[in-house]
């Protein structure tokens, strides 16, 4: 039995179920219970933590605007027996606590020779589309994927959001959990019981043999509508959602490209040193012989996000951009298929 839940409700359900299951789970962030300390009642909890305070009054709390302190506190608490889920609100605010992520959370275990574990989850709202301007619309997951020691999760559906959050809370390493602000109210089937979705296992969102499209987060939906349009012309695309960009399920991607011979990566992040180039370069290195056309990367431009809605709508990749990229790489199918023994095994 499954119910239709929103992405936001799905994240909240995972938090509630893990709080019930494991007393070491604690949740905190600005306004996570909404207005602690004001006269009278609590005010304005919102988002996935809404309502948790009523059931877990002692295990979810608000913080002052002190990200460096409370993200660092999450690291220290994780290393001493808790499983904190800290809320950054917008991922853009990682800027004010980046040392605690880059130099403390990510490196502690390695620096102490494996004597520590840092089982924390850092929740972060990301992505463009909400008319929030350049400081509230970034993707940034490529920056976190670059950092050894972190795990980076980017769910695209309510069911994945719940299962991946459950896995993230139970995981013994620091996890940055990316929630796309424009997916919060997207809805889908979500099983009611707790369940884990393993990290590093991609989801084949749509099967096809003509071109592999790897898409991240909200872009999975753009890729699917692009695939629909292309199917009308008889081009059958395979759409792969990696679900986690660190670890990354390269096996599923390579296997698909070996069937299709073509790769398009769709990444809402900025283009330089992003996940699109990361995946495309891995394929060009490890599945090169299977490529029958150039890899194509479809990303947001090398520019901050604009405020104006018309400009912002033109900022992230669109289904039309993806269709064009698939056509472009297939048009340039110039390589003979390799004989079997030449295939990379």
């Amino acid at each position, binding site marked *: 039995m499954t119910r239709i839940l929103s992405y936001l409700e799905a994240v909240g359900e995972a938090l509630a179920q893990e709080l019930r299951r494991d007393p070491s789970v604690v949740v905190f962030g600005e306004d996570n219970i909404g*207005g602690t*300390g004001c006269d009278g009642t609590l*005010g304005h909890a919102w988002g996935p933590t809404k309502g948790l305070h009523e059931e877990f009054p002692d295990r979810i709390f608000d913080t002052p605007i002190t990200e460096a302190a409370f993200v660092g506190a999450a690291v220290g608490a994780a290393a001493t027996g808790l499983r904190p889920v800290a809320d950054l609100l917008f991922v853009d605010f990682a800027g004010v606590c980046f040392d605690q992520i880059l130099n403390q959370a990510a490196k502690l275990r390695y620096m102490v020779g494996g004597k520590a574990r840092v089982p924390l989850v850092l929740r972060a709202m990301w992505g463009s589309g909400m*008319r929030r*301007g350049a400081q509230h619309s970034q993707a940034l997951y490529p920056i976190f994927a670059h950092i050894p020691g972190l795990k980076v999760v980017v769910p695209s559906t309510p069911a994945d959001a719940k299962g991946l959050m459950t896995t993230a809370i139970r995981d013994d390493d620091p996890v940055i959990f990316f929630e796309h602000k424009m997916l919060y109210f997207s809805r889908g089937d979500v099983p009611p019981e707790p369940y884990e979705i393993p990290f590093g296992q991609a989801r084949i969102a749509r099967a096809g043999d003509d071109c592999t499209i790897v898409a991240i987060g909200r872009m999975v939906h753009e890729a699917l509508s692009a695939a629909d349009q292309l199917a009308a012309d008889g081009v059958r695309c395979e759409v792969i959602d990696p679900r986690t960009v660190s670890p990354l399920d390269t096996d599923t991607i390579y296997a698909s490209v070996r069937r299709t011979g073509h790769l398009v990566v769709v990444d809402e992040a900025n283009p330089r040193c992003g996940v699109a180039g990361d995946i495309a370069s891995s394929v060009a290195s490890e599945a090169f012989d299977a490529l029958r056309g150039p890899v194509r990367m479809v990303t947001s431009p090398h*520019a901050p996000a604009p405020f104006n*809605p018309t400009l912002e709508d033109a900022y992230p990749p669109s289904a039309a951009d993806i269709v064009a990229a698939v056509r472009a790489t297939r048009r340039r199918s110039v390589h003979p298929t390799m004989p079997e023994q030449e295939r990379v095994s």
Partner: protein
Amino acid sequence: MANDTAGLDRDQLIAGYRTMRTIREFEERVHEEFAGGGIPGAVHLYAGQEAVAAGVCAALADNDYIASTHRGHGHGIAKGCDLAGMMREIYGKAGGLCGGKGGSMHIADFDRGMLGANGVAAGGVPLACGAALSAKLRGTGQVAVAFVGDGGANQGAFAESLTLAAVWRLPVVFVVEDNGFAQSTGTRFHLGGRQVAPRAEAVGISSAVVDGYDFVAVHDATAEAVHRARTGGGPTLVECVAHRFFGHMEGWDRQGYRSPGEVDRLRAEHDCLVLLAKQLTADGSVSTSDLAEIDLAVRARVDEAVADARAAAEPDLDELLTDVYVSY
């Protein structure tokens, strides 16, 4: 207050009233326009706190600098930013102060010394220190003001800026606006009910705490701080207490974190405009009809700005990729 800084004359008081009324009218109107769906994005209204922006900027010269916050409309208006340019920016239209690329949270006007609203709590405070450093090294006698909220005052960047300003003896004034809340979290929690001023004193920065509803009090405290800065005396912190009339962000909260009737009482008993009007009309030098005239004129300007912004064109699509670099 030092005598050389106090004593606003009649015209200055009237100018302050006009500024405050303009902010109020602007914000009440943005509130309606947002509700009507005409304005996109994140809008944080300043209504209720007008005496702070107006009082502070009344103590500044045209070429002085201010670094603002996410709640920056009042600061911009008080520093002299063009009303229509601001409204267009809030609508995200061509001809907006940032060409529609910044919006409410990034309104800036470098020609007016307005270094920008900021989407990051306390994010603009170090920028003001930099403007003060620039003024000091260029020997221009300019002063920079850093606005920060009670919540932003808990940011490390704010604490570090206090230290840097003290050590470098920068001509900067830190204006803390305690409006009672950071989003929906109250100062009773996140400041433990305390003031921010002692944090400045702790690093050797003198401070003043004033009634943020009182234009004259804010002006006088700021004027003294500005005088200190201009004469090489270094930084000062001025803490102003004045609560906001609206929620944290338009369309976001229903202010459940406020006690019942709190906002009505606020509007009834702590309206900075009513207070200043009283002060102005007390000695009969200004009549209520004089003020009513100002109110009408202000309303007309805001009406114009809204009409202009609504009618303004969308930015050209090429704008998406311009202004990333001067050259690349």
